């Protein structure tokens, strides 16, 4: 009688230990990676920054790390106003921003297909003129002068302009023109956007969004070319 009770007790105890060990083993921690930490960005910017079908959210994968860092700072400091971003970033610090920026800058992901353009051929031609040759009479430099001959951007702080939705581009240009988006001074994009007319903004946005992208499009290394304007975001 005693032996069988003892045996049952031992079996019971052993089962309990195994079960509880099992339970403890299942309660793992979240992966200790930066990728696991930035899932807070996933619903808008994609799991690895590839963007989403929603045209309001830009692709951030493969952008220069310095540019992404500046934007994270701009949202935290209020130079860019967008409540969901201002809220998410309010209590995070610069060193963590750098880590996040480095993560997304290092992502190499396929681009979405360029936009099926709904604008006229004349507008696209005008856009191409502005992007590649600027407008001397209005003092508008060509976009390629800073953003690169293939619009890839350049490290550390100038982003590429291909692979973005036209609505996002025109929103940012208009925000600079209206004075609601700021960058660190000297804010050269504000200077340039202030000289653009609305029609020019539409043309530029439509042209850029229609450009084909190859997955080899990466920001050029720092110093590949000299920018005509001095900008607070680009040393």
């Amino acid at each position, binding site marked *: 009688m005693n032996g069988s009770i003892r045996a049952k007790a031992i079996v019971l105890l052993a089962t309990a230990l195994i079960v509880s060990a099992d339970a403890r083993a299942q309660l793992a921690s979240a992966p200790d990676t930066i990728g696991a930490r930035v899932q807070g960005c996933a619903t808008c910017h994609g799991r690895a920054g590839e963007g989403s079908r929603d*045209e*309001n959210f830009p692709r951030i994968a493969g952008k220069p790390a310095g540019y992404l860092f500046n934007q994270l700072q701009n949202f935290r400091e209020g130079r*860019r*106003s*967008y*409540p*969901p971003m*201002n809220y998410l970033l309010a209590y995070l610090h610069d060193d963590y921003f750098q880590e996040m920026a480095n993560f997304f800058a290092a992502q190499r992901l396929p681009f979405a297909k360029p936009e099926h353009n709904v604008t006229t051929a004349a507008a696209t031609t005008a856009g191409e003129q502005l992007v590649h040759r600027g407008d001397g009479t209005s003092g508008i430099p060509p976009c390629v002068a800073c953003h690169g001959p293939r619009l890839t951007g350049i490290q550390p702080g100038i982003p590429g302009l291909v692979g973005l939705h*036209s*609505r996002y581009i*025109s*929103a*940012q*240009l*208009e*925000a600079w023109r*209206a*004075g*609601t*988006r700021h960058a660190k001074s000297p804010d050269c994009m504000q200077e340039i956007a202030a000289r653009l007319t*609305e*029609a*020019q*903004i*539409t043309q530029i*946005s439509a042209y850029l969004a229609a450009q084909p992208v190859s997955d080899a499009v990466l920001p050029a290394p720092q110093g590949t070319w000299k920018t005509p304007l001095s900008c607070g975001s680009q040393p």
Partner: protein
Amino acid sequence: MKQLGWWGVIVTFVLVFAGGFVSYFWLPSAQLNGPRSAFEAFCIALGVPQAAPPSTIVVDVAPPSDVILTHNLLQPSTPQDIGHGATLAIRCTPCHGPTGISFADSPNLAGQYAATIYKQLRDFKSGVRSNAIMNPVAQALSDTQMQQIAAYYASRVRPVESRVAADPPAIVKWGAPMRNIAPCGSCHGSEDHSAASPWLSGEPAAYLRAQLYAFASGARTNDINGQMRAMVRGMTPTEIDWAALYFAGSTGAP
């Protein structure tokens, strides 16, 4: 008695002719851009329509807005519309501010009439009103979404009027009747307003000025029946500046 009678006749005739001269010739001639001849003055006084004055009339070839303003233009908004509008309006915040009050020269939307916002969104979508960013933004919105955004912004608190109660400038207070310019308050009044005429107080001065110039030049064409264009065409640049500054809440001179 006979003398009085003759005098009476003479005086009556004199009064009739003097009155007739004043009413039918002198006063009409005294108008700005007045008639070129006495005959024209007489005809104007009788109300005969004249030939069109020369050249500075802008012939309107832009298509009118397809928004017909009736009292039931908008569905009555429910509280849930405001919630949906809040989420939709997140994408508007980069230019129009987190609470509908812009930090720069884009217009404030907080507290704007729902019908106004709805009409402008419809006009941006159809292209009757043209703006580089608003046209693509509005094209992506359905009618229901526009109504929800309008309901949301209409429910927001207006920017605080910081203006010390100052006397409005003459162009705002009286308009300019001889130039067919009504006082602004006749449509944009704070006590009552005509359909979809926007609330103006607290809007950025640069925005108001830009819109007035756009109406004056005919670049903006979505005003109902061309009323704004007709009026602003007759305003001087100084008057435009005064009006913009007044509604923006400034007490200073342009």
